[in-house]
């Protein structure tokens, strides 16, 4: 099996047994851009309704907000592509926020309200996130329980534990640490808000991992056909667990950015983020049943969802009661434009 020149003569000219593929039809390429076009259309409408939409400060606001669920959605993309789902991310974010604040408040006594305390708080968030992900992954793969069930269960558990820690009220970050920590959300680097930078980094890294590493390849293979992956000697269990851990880390990261924003955790922190994150992934063109997907689509999806809300805030034409209806309508509309792909 080594000869550089193929031992078989080239096929006779007449055969053409398997003709080369025709170029991918233009329309289907266009459809893949569906969510992006949707976002651009929405932006155009928004600008027409209120030119303030296009100001740097407004766009910065929009992107910063998209960062939280966006970062989570990047992790969720991996989970969904591998054929899984995670309903617990919102609750997990709340729990992480609560524990992280408690840890930082406690550490302030010994370490002061400085960088060390904040760093340890951040570490707590990441460790907690990955532990939760590990638990999900192990229960789903080795425990052989549907991901929907496992994470529906932990959705309840995490939020309840937070409510318990907060005794029904709020867990608030000490003022001094809060001030030291606040640049993580409110600060900018070269004029760009930190959360946007982190979001961009996570998205780029996510795209790279998904499309250019073995791990990403295996995630797609598993989601496409678990049996085939197993036959290709891929460690299906390990890879699947890793997707949940990855998502857990993303949740931890998002929480790290989120805590300085509001400086507290309450029983309603992160409520329904799971829906937003999953919606961003699906709007972005990843199929719910897994197998294939794209990170940039997810990013666009996350931004799109936030933009709808922003546009609604910028204008006054719709009854306040109907906001959710507009959001729903736009979501369906955008999906309609990318539908021919499937």
């Amino acid at each position, binding site marked *: 099996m080594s000869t550089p020149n193929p031992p078989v003569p080239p096929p006779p000219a007449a055969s053409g047994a398997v003709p080369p593929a025709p170029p991918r039809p233009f329309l289907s390429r266009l459809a893949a851009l569906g969510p992006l076009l949707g976002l651009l259309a929405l932006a155009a409408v928004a600008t027409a309704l209120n030119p303030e939409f296009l100001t740097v400060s407004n766009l910065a606001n929009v992107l910063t907000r998209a960062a939280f669920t966006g970062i989570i959605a990047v992790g969720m993309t991996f989970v969904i592509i591998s054929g899984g789902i995670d309903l617990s991310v919102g609750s997990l974010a709340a729990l992480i926020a609560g524990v992280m604040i408690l840890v930082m408040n406690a550490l302030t006594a010994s370490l002061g309200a400085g960088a060390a305390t904040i760093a340890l708080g951040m570490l707590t968030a990441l460790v907690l996130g990955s532990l939760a992900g590990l638990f999900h992954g192990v229960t789903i793969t080795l425990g052989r329980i549907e991901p929907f069930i496992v994470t529906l269960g932990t959705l309840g558990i995490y939020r309840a534990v937070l409510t318990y820690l907060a005794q029904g009220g709020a867990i608030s970050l000490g003022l001094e640490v809060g001030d030291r920590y606040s640049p993580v959300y409110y600060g900018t680097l070269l004029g760009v808000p930190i959360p946007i930078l982190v979001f961009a980094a996570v998205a780029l890294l996510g795209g790279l991992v998904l499309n250019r590493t073995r791990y990403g390849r295996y995630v797609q293979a598993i989601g496409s056909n678990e049996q085939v992956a197993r036959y290709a000697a891929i460690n299906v269990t390990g890879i699947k667990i890793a997707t949940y851990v990855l998502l857990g880390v993303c949740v931890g990261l998002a929480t790290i950015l989120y805590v300085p924003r509001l400086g507290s955790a309450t029983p309603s*922190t992160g409520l329904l983020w799971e829906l937003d994150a999953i919606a961003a992934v699906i709007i972005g063109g990843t199929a719910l049943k897994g197998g294939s997907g794209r990170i940039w689509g997810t990013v666009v999806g996350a931004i799109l969802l936030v933009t709808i809300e922003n546009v609604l805030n910028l204008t006054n034409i719709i009854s306040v009661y109907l906001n959710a209806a507009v959001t729903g309508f736009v979501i369906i509309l955008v999906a309609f434009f990318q539908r021919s792909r499937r």
Partner: protein
Amino acid sequence: QAKQVIGVSIPAADHGWTAGIVYHANEAKKALEQKYPNVQIIVKTAKDSNEQANQIQDLYTVNKINALVILPQESAPLTRPVADLKSKGVFVTVVDRGLTDPKAQDAYVAGDNTAFGRVAGQYFAQRLGAQGGNVVVLRGIPTVIDNQRVAAFNAAVAKNPKIKVLDARYGNWNRDDAFKVMQDYLTRFPKIDAVWASDDDMAVGVLRAIQQAGRKDIKFVVGGAGMKDMIKKVMDGDALIPVDVTYPPSMIADAMRLTVESRVTGKPMKATTIIPSVLVTKANAKQFYYPNSPF
């Protein structure tokens, strides 16, 4: 005179009381804009704290508001975002659910949550009298004001050692959940003398559950906030609903009016305006009855 843009940010109408808030805010907007042609009022509703934080950011960045009247979804999470606006020169009036740091606001208009619990508790203590009785409690959703109310209620009821609070569970300010919790209370406790539903929406569910079980041991139910149907029952002398405790959603209109007036006239606004929670009885019920409000 320069145009004044006032942002009003309130919770979405997710139950009766907040529906009242939305209604009164929109009514006040119409009235105030009519009265002051130079004033523009933008009313926004938010379904959770996060969305509300986004919303006030947008009100500032895009609508360039001069003043903000806000009824925060939750206290702690909105403190920082509101403080941020105030630091940028926006005049801030906070309504009802206070912020954790009063420095983040210019003025505060509120119902009295402690009084809300206390007034109800006092009624229980007095009405159940010497022989006392068994009481069950339905709480709202886990929030600071709910904690305040329950604490005040418990403190007031404790004055009557014969009263036993059997249990207190969340009904989430929701009719349905209250119905179910009450059903289970009725199964669990063979003798209940009175129910503190702590909210009129929840009282609706409680009444249905009692009616279904056909239980006669419950002497009365106290809700709260002043929903028109409940006020009507008090007015009509319904035995099960002898009283109500006010917590009027019209406080949003008061806050808006006070804010606009102070902006337009330049006169300072009072730092704190507390709208008391009072006991509604058959005698005074008429003055709390607004048949046209949705609440």
